[in-house]
């Protein structure tokens, strides 16, 4: 994207005109949550203004409209992930909820002696649900180790006859590492294990093709792909979803309810108990439209150039260390300045209007690996500019001086 094109794009994001502490906002906390284009904000409002009712089974016109809008969003999501069928697309509260849906259901099929394989690079959202599933079932949780450059130390030897499922992220939120999920999926399948991919961080940064990947489950988070909060997606292969026990019980997920027993609806409805986040799904559909109109590959290239620009300039600062130096990396820069606490870095940058994230990023095992309390992390999105990246680097230089 040219500088002018980015400026055009920025006009779509009203929040980017905000000031903080009297400074124009430089928003570099996109890995935590990205900002929303007008298209998404308007889609939610339009839905409530013109099409809202409860979905499914309504005979009246408004319920028809709501159902159509909701199911159209499902179709847009199918296209975004290149899933085979819309029945494979389940709307959830977010990525965490999607992982819990699988961990809870799959956990019921686990027993003592079974193994669940996760990685050292996981977000707590892809650790804790599996720990809970293992605790309930007596299965064993095993961990793919990490190397100090932030890549996974993958070996198919980690898979055993007892491995039932492998759960790894596509991109690490703390370090930016792009993991070799194609290979992990192929190796796991060869051993008869299923694979769940946490795509919370890949969703916003790369084109995803769940069929080419052959993932059994793939989860994404709405608020990280320019969509609203409170919505996410669980993709599952249809056969897998048919086998997977439902997560929550309630309306919409049933076929027939009798006191003697209940039969469940088919996927996706089996996993969508209760009134779903209809407006959120509709706005998420608009977010996918937005990403398609900009072009996923274009976004990825733009962010890659911002990251490289930032990394090269930061490396010139005395005592600055970058965590996560994999060759294959998405748009995240995690760093520390000397022995300074990341909290100080974050507070001082905030005074300059620069929003970054500090702390363990919900990945305590990674921080323990490096024996640090946390990092300062800048992460980029389609609307960030080179100028912002350079201002951020200047800000870090000032912080380094102040904390000396």
């Amino acid at each position, binding site marked *: 994207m040219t500088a002018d094109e980015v400026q055009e794009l920025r006009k779509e994001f009203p929040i980017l005109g905000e000031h903080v*502490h009297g400074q124009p906002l430089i928003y570099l906390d996109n890995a935590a949550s990205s900002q929303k284009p007008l298209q998404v904000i308007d889609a939610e409002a339009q839905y409530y203004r013109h099409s809202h009712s409860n979905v499914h089974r309504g005979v009246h016109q408004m319920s028809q409209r709501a159902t159509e809008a909701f199911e159209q969003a499902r179709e847009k999501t199918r296209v975004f992930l290149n899933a085979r069928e819309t029945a494979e697309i389940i709307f959830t509260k977010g990525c965490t909820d999607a992982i819990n849906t699988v961990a809870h259901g799959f956990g019921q099929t686990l027993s003592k002696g079974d193994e669940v394989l996760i990685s050292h690079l996981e977000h707590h959202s892809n650790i804790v649900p599996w720990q809970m599933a293992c605790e309930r079932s007596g299965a064993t949780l095993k961990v793919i180790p990490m190397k100090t450059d932030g890549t996974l130390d993958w070996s198919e030897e980690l898979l055993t006859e007892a491995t039932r499922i492998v759960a790894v992220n596509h991109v690490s939120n703390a370090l930016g590492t792009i993991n070799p999920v194609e290979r992990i999926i192929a190796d796991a399948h060869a051993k008869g294990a299923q694979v769940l991919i946490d795509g919370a961080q890949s969703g916003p940064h790369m084109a995803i093709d769940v069929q080419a990947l052959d993932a059994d489950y793939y989860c994404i988070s709405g608020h990280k792909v320019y969509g609203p909060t409170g919505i996410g997606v669980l993709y599952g292969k249809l056969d897998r979803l048919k086998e997977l026990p439902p997560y929550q019980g309630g309306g919409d997920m049933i076929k027939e309810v009798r006191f003697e027993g209940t039969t469940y609806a088919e996927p996706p409805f089996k996993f969508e108990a209760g009134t779903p986040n209809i407006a959120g799904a509709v706005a998420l559909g608009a977010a996918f439209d937005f990403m398609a109109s900009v072009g996923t590959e274009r976004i990825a290239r733009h962010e890659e150039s911002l990251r490289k620009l930032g990394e090269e300039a930061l490396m010139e600062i005395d005592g600055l260390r970058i965590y996560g130096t994999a060759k294959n990396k998405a748009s995240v820069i995690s760093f520390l300045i000397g022995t*300074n*606490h*990341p*909290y*100080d870095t974050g*507070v*001082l940058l905030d*005074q300059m209007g620069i929003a970054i994230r*500090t*702390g363990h990023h919900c990945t305590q095992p990674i921080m323990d690996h490096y024996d640090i*309390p*946390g990092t300062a992390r800048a992460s980029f999105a389609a609307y960030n500019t080179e100028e912002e990246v350079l201002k951020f680097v200047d800000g870090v230089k*000032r912080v380094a001086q*102040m*904390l000396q």
Partner: protein
Amino acid sequence: MTIQQAQTEIEEEFELFDDWMQKYEHLIELGKDLPQISEEHKDDEHLIKGCQSRVWLDARLENGRVRYSADGDALITKGIISLLVRSLDDQPAADIVEADLKFIDRIGLKEHLSPTRANGLLSMAKQMKFYALAFQAQNGDAYG
């Protein structure tokens, strides 16, 4: 000096700064003079959990006055602690219990004591008062 006087002194000191950088540089300097908690007291018992940066606080009673010592692993956090300590240290427990801490607000550092900041400073301020309250109860009316 009373708590009120100490706070006024801090406020006057901070009025001298006209940009945020000077203010934060001063804060960072102040943190360096914090009455240090002894290393063996930097344990779980004295730790104030604040998610991101860690803060340790200790208090003892000396001649009827509460003496605080503390430490933190982030410099800005330490600076704020040093302001709290400067305003409450070496004061009678009863005065500490009653003290208001709005001076932090008035010198433009309010956000650091906000409950949404995961820095433990709000719990730290509460813990300082809690120590004072405990000493007050311990001593009955003698110093109250």
